[in-house]
């Protein structure tokens, strides 16, 4: 089954209905393992128990960027291949990505309170994640501003792709502007500097959160498809009612003027 076969929403609904329970189960199991391992992880010699916020914070932060990547691919699908599910995927991903970004900010500031002595610091990484959050909210506002879904989809796709090009530039400029956050420590040249006792739970949590995103995303896409169906059924119903009332009264002009009013 290729991606084109999924263009049929009914087929997509059937496939996702079969996949969802498995995905949800895997997510729950991995989250349980990850949380257990994170709870068992030793305290940091400097940060104490607050280091455990990292196991939630870092996957959220990774996913906040990953989701924008998913939306960019979906936007290419909308603009280039005109895949009918692409705009559903892009629309469903935006609120989930915004939630991950918000959680990354929230856990980051909860960690910052004991460590830096303040909930908010205009540090480069925090600031660029905040800008990412603002862009997610802007995108959601764009989706909500237009009632025609296909028109909104194309506008949102252009904006998502522009954002995908601009986000690295914004990140770079904000880094240049001010930096206080510790440099990247898991993925960098010369291997990870993180101890194994932290690294393994972190990776498990990262995979669990990614699965969580896939599960939520599929479920949200199903909801969006069903929502659109309900909407088109309502429109058909409304037009049928209008048409039959027109027939029964017999005077077309009167009804047309009523409709216009």
């Amino acid at each position, binding site marked *: 089954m290729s991606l084109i076969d999924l263009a049929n929403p009914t087929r997509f609904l059937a496939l996702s209905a079969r996949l969802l329970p498995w995905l949800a189960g895997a997510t729950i199991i991995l989250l349980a393992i990850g949380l257990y391992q994170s709870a068992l992880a030793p305290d940091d010699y400097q940060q104490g128990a607050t280091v455990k916020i990292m196991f939630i914070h870092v996957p959220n932060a990774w996913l906040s960027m990953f989701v924008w990547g998913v939306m960019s691919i979906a936007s290419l699908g909308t*603009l280039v291949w005109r895949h009918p599910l692409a705009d559903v995927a892009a629309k469903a991903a935006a609120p989930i990505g915004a939630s991950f970004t918000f959680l990354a900010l929230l856990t980051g500031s909860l960690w910052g309170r004991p460590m830096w002595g303040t909930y908010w610091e205009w540090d480069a990484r925090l600031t660029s994640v905040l*800008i990412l959050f*603002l*862009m997610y*909210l*802007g*995108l959601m*506002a*764009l989706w909500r*501003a*237009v009632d025609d879904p296909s*028109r*909104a989809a*194309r*506008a949102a*796709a*252009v*904006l998502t*792709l*522009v*954002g995908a*090009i*601009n986000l690295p*530039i*914004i990140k*770079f*400029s*904000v880094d*240049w*502007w001010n930096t206080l956050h510790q440099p990247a420590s898991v993925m960098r040249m010369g291997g990870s500097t993180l101890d194994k006792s932290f690294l393994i739970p972190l990776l498990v949590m990262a995979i669990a959160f990614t699965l969580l995103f896939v599960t939520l995303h599929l479920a949200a896409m199903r909801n969006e498809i069903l929502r659109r169906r309900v909407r088109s059924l309502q429109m058909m119903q409304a037009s049928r009612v209008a048409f039959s009332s027109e027939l029964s009264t017999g005077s077309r002009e009167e009804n047309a003027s009523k409709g216009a009013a």
Partner: protein
Amino acid sequence: MTALSALIRRDIRIALRVGGGALIGVLFFLTVVVLMPFAVGPDLALLSRLGPAILWLGALLASLLTLDRLFMADHEDGSLDLITMSRTPLELACAAKALAHWLAAGLPLIVATPVLGLLLNLDMVATAAVALTLLAGTPALTFTGMIGAALAVTLHRGGLLMAVLVLPLSIPVLIFGVAASQAVIVGPMNFGAPFSILCALSLVSLVIGPFAAAASLRHGLD
């Protein structure tokens, strides 16, 4: 080529004549800068320290507000459809429109900067630095803002939504513009590095802006 220069000349003429909004941008810029001392207090030392930031913010807001109508008026009178259907590539036409907009609405802001610098107690060198960074940076604001204008016309929405979408994209320009001006005024960094990056941002947006705007117009207009 003649089509593009005709488009540029037409847009500038419309912007400068009665009904065009280009010079209102300068008036808005002036008003924002005049408002600032009321907010932070009439302390000349503080104002000269904040000066570049105030001027940059004012220019950013002024260019954003005038951009709102970049495609809207043409859409209303139907000339946007002619532009989309003409043989000139839409990307080039968008670039020409943005260039015209910058010439009509962006350049006057830079010309007004020395007067406003006087109000903010900036000395000659500082004012020159701010004007130079604005000269290098406002094209980036116009060309990224054009994307928002194109989205606005395809969605029949403007105003706040566009501002919310476009403002985050202009953060890099703001950062490097203010940094380059501050480097001249207080040091200790050199002026060259942020200024070159500012020019680079303008060049990048010169490429991205027309393509994104054209894509949005092509997909969005019906």
